[in-house]
Every structure is written in structure tokens, then in C-alpha cells.
């Protein structure tokens, strides 16, 4: 008996010793890992902050340099943009009108068609139709913008010119329309998300009162999903303002201050492409103008994104 207990005791001790031994050999490393990993991961997470800071700082510093050479007011109220030549003029208004017009044309296409698509998908379509149509929209959203640019330049512009003979070979109308097509999937899918998150009880309540589907959509679903729908429009506008390749290819590079959409115009994004493509020497006003225009572009899109976030947060109906 005595012997047995002794033996048990000794085995227990051996196992405990083994555990202690293992602790010392492997726990150290894993304890360090345990402490280190959150710090490493936090550092990695900071990279996204650094990117934003990098964008802001480069834009701000170089823009300040630009405004040392060109007065603030001349930039924002100048209607003449002549970056090259003996007497360069840096008025941003031609670029602003170009950007504004192309975005307006795009939204003229994207808002009605996108909203109607969203209504069809969320309220009318059968499950089968939705299963076919949604992937097609996703494909449309996944096509690179350069392909849309090619399409606008080699197909849409010649097509439009057969209707409107006065249309120039590069103009703001054609890229605007194609940009609208490009933005349809975005508006449609965001609006559809907003509409399908309206609870079914509201739909059924209205239907039970004798409303037709259209009346339910128009008087119940759209008001209930309004914030989400407006947010999708705002994000669409932001996308249109920042779009580069379609307008660079199809709208040309003339810097006229005009509101005639059949003419060639330049957008802010296309100007950036033109100046960087020309390898502007660092330190010249031309080079800094790149950053001033980019800053304006960034400011507008940032404002739109904030607005969209604000709208969808502030005016959301909670059910």
C-alpha cells in the first residue's frame, strides 16, 4: 500500500515536471508572439491612415506652392486656362465646367435608369429574373473604364455624329453618356439594397389597403428608402467626378470655357493626365497646377462621400 502511494506520487511529480519543462522551452516564444502580434497588426492597420495622410500632405504642400505663383482668386474665378506658352493662365473654371457637364450628363442617364432598374429588381422581378439580371449588372460594373473609353470614342461618338452632324470628333456628350451607363450598376445596386431593406410588413399593409404595386413603390417603398436612394445618387456623382479614362479618351483636351456639350472640353481628371503625360519638370508652375487641380478634385469627391455617409446615417428610417 505504502509503496503504491509513493509510486503514484512520483508519477504525478514526473508529469508536472514534464509540463514545467515544456512551459519553459515553448512558452517563452509564444508569449512574445502573443504580445507582439497586436502591435504588428496595429502598425499594419495604420498604413491605411498613412495613405490618407500621404495623399492629403502631398496635395496640400504642393498646392501651397502653386498658390504662391498664382493667386487663389485667379485660379477659382479664371475662365482662361493656358498652361503653356509665354503668358500662362491658370483659371480652373474651364475644367470645372467640363467636369460638371460630363457628370451632369452621366447622372441624367444613370439616375432614372439606375432607379428604375432598382425598382424592377426589388419590387417586380421574380426570383429567376433577379438571378439572371443581377450578375449581368455585376459584369457591367466590372468592365474596366478604359474599355468604356474605347467604346465611347470608337462607337458612341461616330453613332451620335450621324444624328448630330455638328458634334466634334471629341466632345463631352459621348463620354458623359457612356459614363452614365458605367454608373447605372452602382446606383441600381445601392438603391436596390435600400429598397429591399424596407420591411415586408409595410409592403403588405399597403397592398392590403388596395394599392397597386406601383402605388406601393411610389408612396411607401421609395419614401421609406429615400435616404439610401439619395446616398446612391451622391456616390454616383462622386464616381462621375473622379472618372478619368473615359473623358481623357473621348472628350479631348481643348480648354474652352463653354457650356456647349457638342464641343471638346477637358475635365479636371483629363487635365491631370495631360500634364503628367507631358512630363512637366518638377518645380514649374505647370507642375504645381497638377496638384491644385487634384486637390480641387479630391475636395469635391471627398465632400460628396461625406455627404452620402451623412445622408444615409442622418435620415435613415429605423424599423
Amino acid at each position, binding site marked *: 500500500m505504502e509503496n503504491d502511494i509513493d509510486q503514484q506520487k512520483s508519477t504525478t511529480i514526473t508529469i508536472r515536471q514534464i509540463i514545467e519543462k515544456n512551459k519553459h522551452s515553448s512558452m517563452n516564444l*509564444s508569449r512574445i*508572439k*502573443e504580445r507582439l*502580434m*497586436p502591435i504588428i497588426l496595429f502598425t*499594419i492597420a*495604420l*498604413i*491605411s*491612415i498613412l*495613405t490618407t495622410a*500621404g*495623399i492629403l500632405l*502631398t*496635395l496640400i504642400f504642393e498646392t501651397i506652392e502653386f498658390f504662391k505663383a498664382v493667386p487663389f482668386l485667379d485660379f477659382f474665378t479664371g475662365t482662361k486656362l493656358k498652361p503653356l506658352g509665354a503668358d500662362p493662365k491658370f483659371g480652373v473654371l474651364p475644367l470645372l465646367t467640363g467636369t460638371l457637364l460630363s457628370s451632369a450628363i452621366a447622372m441624367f442617364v444613370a439616375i432614372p*435608369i439606375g432607379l*428604375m*432598374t432598382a*425598382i*424592377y*429588381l426589388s419590387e*417586380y*422581378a421574380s426570383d429567376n429574373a433577379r438571378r439572371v*439580371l443581377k450578375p*449581368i*449588372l455585376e*459584369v*457591367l460594373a*466590372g*468592365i*474596366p*473604364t*478604359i*474599355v468604356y473609353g*474605347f*467604346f465611347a*470614342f*470608337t*462607337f458612341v461618338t461616330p453613332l451620335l455624329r450621324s444624328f448630330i452632324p455638328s458634334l466634334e*470628333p471629341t466632345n463631352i456628350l459621348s463620354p458623359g453618356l457612356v459614363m452614365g451607363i458605367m454608373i447605372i450598376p452602382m446606383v*441600381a445596386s445601392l438603391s436596390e439594397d435600400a429598397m429591399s431593406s424596407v420591411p415586408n410588413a409595410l409592403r403588405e399593409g399597403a397592398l392590403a389597403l388596395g394599392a*397597386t404595386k406601383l402605388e406601393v413603390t411610389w408612396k411607401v417603398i421609395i419614401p421609406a428608402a429615400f435616404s439610401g436612394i439619395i446616398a446612391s445618387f451622391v*456616390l454616383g456623382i462622386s464616381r462621375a467626378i*473622379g*472618372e*478619368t*479614362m473615359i473623358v*481623357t*479618351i473621348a472628350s479631348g483636351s481643348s480648354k474652352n470655357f463653354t457650356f456647349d456639350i457638342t464641343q471638346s472640353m477637358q475635365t479636371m481628371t483629363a487635365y*491631370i*493626365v495631360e500634364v*503628367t*503625360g507631358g*512630363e512637366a519638370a*518638377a518645380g514649374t508652375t505647370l507642375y504645381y497646377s497638377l496638384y491644385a487641380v487634384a486637390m480641387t*478634385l*479630391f475636395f469635391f*469627391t*471627398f465632400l460628396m*462621400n461625406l455627404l452620402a455617409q451623412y445622408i444615409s446615417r442622418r435620415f435613415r428610417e429605423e424599423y
Partner: protein
Amino acid sequence: MKYVDDKKFQTRMTIRMLINKIAKLMFFLATIIGLVVLVILIYRVYTQSIGWIDWQFLTGKLSTKAEKAGIFGALLGTLWLMAVVAPITMILGVGTAIYLEEYAKKGRIHSFIQTNINNLAGVPSIVFGILGLTIFVRGLHLGAIILSGGLTMSLLVLPIVVVASQEAIRSVPQFLREASYGMGATKWQTISKVVLPASIPGILTGVILALSRAIGETAPLVVIGIPALILPFPDSLLDKFTVLPMQIYYWTIDSALVDEYANLAAATIVILLLALFVMNSIAVIIRNKFQKRY
């Protein structure tokens, strides 16, 4: 006394039903517009590329002569770009996602980083190009090489990977983590041996989608200054390079001068769209096949 005038009611009802039907038809037609444009676009590009995609086009060097031009260099450049973007976005994106989902306390820092990532996703791609131009190309004097193009592109698509990885990590059920803790595993052991393996399909899908965005993007690369004609094939990270969309861009704008360049651009678009189609199919397959539902 009658409260409802039957005749009036009938006509009103018919009109309301009719309007509903017309509206339904309009909504359907609007939805179809997207499909119609897609078909026209693909048909146009395809017919313009017929006869131009051959072995010589796929393996040849760039040339100003349309008949002799090939896109092998651009294909290699696109592959190199993917080789830079994939590991960088994977490490940075998954790291950020793990930190946000598993370590960060829901508070000010967490929501600051989260808002920042959402905002970055809305910054126009050309602004990333300017960042790349200023920091990598001019600041670090790298020039328009694969490394600077890849780094720029990585920053651009990073938000996609972060958001996809966050969703994948969030969808790993809590009981798996608790079971792991219950077995005596530490936090990092739980993350690396339980959470990450379970969320790999979602993460991979996100990385592939980010890559397909990266190989189709043109604007940032135009801005960092990739020239129209690069003859030598790239064979290291420090070589100058060109990619498929850049070639489409130059051939499209020059098609006003030489008609055949439009055909070259169309042929390159076909190759690019095929590559995107394959990548997206892989993403869909991974999503459907490996995504477990708990």
C-alpha cells in the same frame, strides 16, 4: 343611398391597373438597357478584333507597325503587377482586418480607422496615381518601374481586401473561437489556427476581386508616367513596364492617326476581358465551393 359609384370605381380601377402595367414594362425596359449596351459593347469589340488575335500578337513585341505589333510585354507587365499587388494587399489587408475585428476595442481608434478605409475606397484612382508619382516615382527616385506601379496599385485596392477580409473574419462563428480558448489556446493561436483558416475562402475572393480591379485600372499608371512604346520585356521589379490597359489607352488615342490601332486596341481588350472573366470565375468558384455555412 350609395357610397360607391360602381361605374366610377370600375374605370378608376382599370386605369390604376393599366398604369401599373405600363410602369412595370418601363422598369423592365430600363433594366434591359444595361444588358443591351453590354451586348453591343462586346459585339463591337469582338468584331473589331477578329483576325488580329494570333500567336504573333500574343508573343510579339510592341511596334509602331500595326501588323507587327504584339502584346507579350504588356502581358508580362500585367503579371508582374499582380505579383507585386497580391502579396502586399494580402498581408496589409488581412493584417488590418484582423486588427479591426479581433484586437481593436470598439471605440474611437477603431471607428477612425474604419471610416478612413471607407473614405479611401471613394478616393478617385487618379489621386492615388498622384500619390504614387510624388512618393514612389519622384520622392524615392524609383521612376516608372514595376515596383512603384505595384505599390501605387496596392494602396488603391487595399480597401477592397480589407473590407472583404473583415466580412470573412466576422462570419467565423463565435463558438469556434470559444472552443479554441476552451482547449487552452491563446488569442494568437486561435486567430492563426482557427479563425484565419476558416475565413480563407472569403479572403481569397476579396484578393482576386482586388487583383481584377488592379489589372483593369489605367489612370494611376498613366499618371506615374508609363511611356507608349516599351520594347524590352520586364524581368525584374526594377524594370520599366507597360500593362494591357495602358496599351489599350495608347492605341485608342492614336487610332485617329492609324485606323488599324483601333483593331489592336480591340484585340487587347478581348484579352483583358478574358483574363478578368477567368479571375472572376475563380472567385465565384471559391466562394461557392469552399464557403462553409455554420
